[in-house]
């Protein structure tokens, strides 16, 4: 089964968000005051470490729930 273009975009977004919190230049030493609330973000993104197809399904599911609650 292959992914539709919209589902591929979801996987791409999940990849980007995963790398934003787990990649990039890391600063150590006195100059870094804090990494603001990243743990909270990470909890919301735990689906990122799941396989691509599951990520896509999870994002679709989350959107469906948002639609039901958000009108």
């Amino acid at each position, binding site marked *: 089964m292959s992914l539709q273009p919209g589902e591929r975009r979801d*996987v791409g977004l999940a990849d980007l968000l995963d790398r*934003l919190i787990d990649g990039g230049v*890391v600063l150590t030493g006195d100059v870094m005051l*804090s990494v603001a609330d990243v743990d909270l*973000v990470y909890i919301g993104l735990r689906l990122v470490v799941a396989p691509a197809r599951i990520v896509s399904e999870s994002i679709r599911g989350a959107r469906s729930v948002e639609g039901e609650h958000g009108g």
Partner: protein
Amino acid sequence: MILLYAIIPAGQPPAPMWKPGAELRVVAHGTLAAVYEELESTRAASIQELTDYGAVLTDLMQRCPLLPVRFGTVLDSVEDLRELLSSRQDEWAERLSRIAGNVEVIVHVPDSGAGPNRPETGSGRDYLLARVAAHKRRQRLQEELLSVVEAHCLESRWLRGVDELRLACLVPAVATDPLRRAVEAWAGAQGGAAPILTGPHPVLSFTERRQDELAAGP
């Protein structure tokens, strides 16, 4: 207080930079510059904040080479940022030169034969044999995928993946299609599920030299 976005070469003003409701600024020191946002105070990070941060970096990567900074990195002042640019000048200049003109593409390859996580049926010996077979299969897939991508990318890094291989590739921005075609051809010959390639992304997985390169020296 400032939120740091990216390190870029000095003299390449990336304006106009987009972020709703915020003004992004640039400070230069020597051959490097940094893109940042003034914050009145730390604020609760949200998925929207993270998405906006990614949008800024994705927009910025179209304009100049950049070393993206991990989300949530906050400094006390612009003066601290200048000191940081000074202290990391050589390292970041070398890395910027290395990644210039390249983007990150992430390859997902399903690994459905990942093996059992815990014994459910059969003997313990059967369970262990199944785990060993799954491990060997994954190793073979990794070796094959690396041999496919190495002709198309400057560097690669394995990322965490569950029931799939996930490989970040540093690829020339103008040459992502050959990588895509090569991976799809390899997967097609395997007869397995189609791979997924995402990107181009900012080079978030390639901001530092690999440990083996560090050990080997400059």
